[in-house]
């Protein structure tokens, strides 16, 4: 049996006195999708940030793509794609300049980088708006660029926090082609819209306020 893409057991995260996650556990195989549901303050974003190695867990065991977090977090750099509340795009650069910048950080440059950027911009229908400054784009267009940025380096694990936010129906359909289910990547999707994502989820994790998993 192949190694799980994500294996979490007894995960806890505290912010000072407040507990954001308490006893979370799940196992996700490569190619699978985990949908995380819960009310505001249930620790969904905290969970994604821990899996992305941006936050340290306070307790429990977390393995992502075979690497222990936080001990081996450095081995995961460049293997995870995070689509969070912030698009991680510089407002004063154009969409294409932003993607070029991220491509270079991930070791892509020259013709292969340009080809990949053109392919992604076409996939989200942004070829003609790619030269405009991000600050001048609508929230939906920024989200489309953020999706390009998230998958630019072909990550093995996608961490998606409300991936459809600000997207219209057409945008959602285009985005699905890039961040939808696929054999090449596992996905952890946080959403307030179970009807939209439950059909494509292999597992569902429900969290309650305070970050405790809801018993099935």
């Amino acid at each position, binding site marked *: 049996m192949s190694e799980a893409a994500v294996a979490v057991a007894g995960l806890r995260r505290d912010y000072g006195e407040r507990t954001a996650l308490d006893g979370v556990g799940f196992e996700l195989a490569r190619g699978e999708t985990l949908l995380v549901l819960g009310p505001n303050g249930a620790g969904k974003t905290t969970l994604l940030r821990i899996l992305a190695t941006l936050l340290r867990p306070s307790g429990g065991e977390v393995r992502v793509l075979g690497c222990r977090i936080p001990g081996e977090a450095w081995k995961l750099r*460049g293997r*995870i794609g*995070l689509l969070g509340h912030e698009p991680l795009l510089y407002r004063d*650069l154009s969409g294409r300049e932003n993607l070029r910048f991220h491509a270079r*950080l*991930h*070791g892509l440059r020259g013709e292969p980088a340009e080809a990949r950027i053109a392919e992604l911009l076409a996939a989200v229908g942004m070829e003609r708006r790619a030269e405009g400054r991000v600050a001048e784009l609508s929230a939906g267009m920024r989200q489309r660029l953020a999706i390009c940025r998230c998958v630019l380096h072909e990550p093995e694990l996608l961490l998606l926090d409300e991936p459809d936010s600000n997207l219209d129906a057409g945008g959602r359909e285009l985005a699905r082609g890039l961040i939808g289910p696929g054999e090449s990547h596992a996905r952890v999707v946080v959403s307030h819209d179970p009807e939209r994502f439950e059909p494509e989820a292999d597992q569902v994790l429900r969290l309650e306020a305070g970050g405790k998993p809801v018993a099935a």
Partner: protein
Amino acid sequence: MTPSRAAFTAILAKDLRAELRTLQSLPAMALFATTTFVIFRFGLDRTSLSGSLASGVLWATLLFAALLGVNRLFVAEREEGGFDAIRLAPIDRSALFAAKATALFTYLVVLELVVVPIFALFFLDSAAALAPLAAVLLLADLGIAATGTLISSMAVHSRARDLLGPLVLLPLVVPLMIAATGASEPLLAVGGPGYHRFGTWLAVLSLYDLIFLLVGWAVFDFLLED
């Protein structure tokens, strides 16, 4: 891992492009320094300065102008998520320190290219001191860039960053300012530049630069951690 040089170039090019496009730091720094020289010019009611007074006016003005650049150095990373993007990328995070310090150093050099001639015009009888002064300026800029980058990366996470940055940075650059003013004083003396203990002060400046560049390089990875 992406080679550090590629990451360094990407971050530096991004910063310089954004500054050229928005002009958020340099014009403010230059305007501040020029206005301060005008205030000194009329406040001191002197058409000519020399020695320690000239050195003090020059360095106090440049240091406070530099603070404007230091405060803004990581604002885009903080507000637009650049820290997360860099932490997710397969790069040596010290490349961020090197790129930011180089960007700040570049701003300081450009600032001085604009305002030091204005200082000379307002206060100096001859321009003979400017050539040797360039060496002092470059070494002090390197020190301010290293220390400023280190402090700015920490202060930017605080809501009181505009206060916290200078409060931490100013005491740290006191040795640098002592050396810079010490080296500049004989250069700006009446009757043309002198070189009393000039080499010693340059050595002190170089040592300060080396220490803070090494400290920044060594600890920057940890500063970006949760």
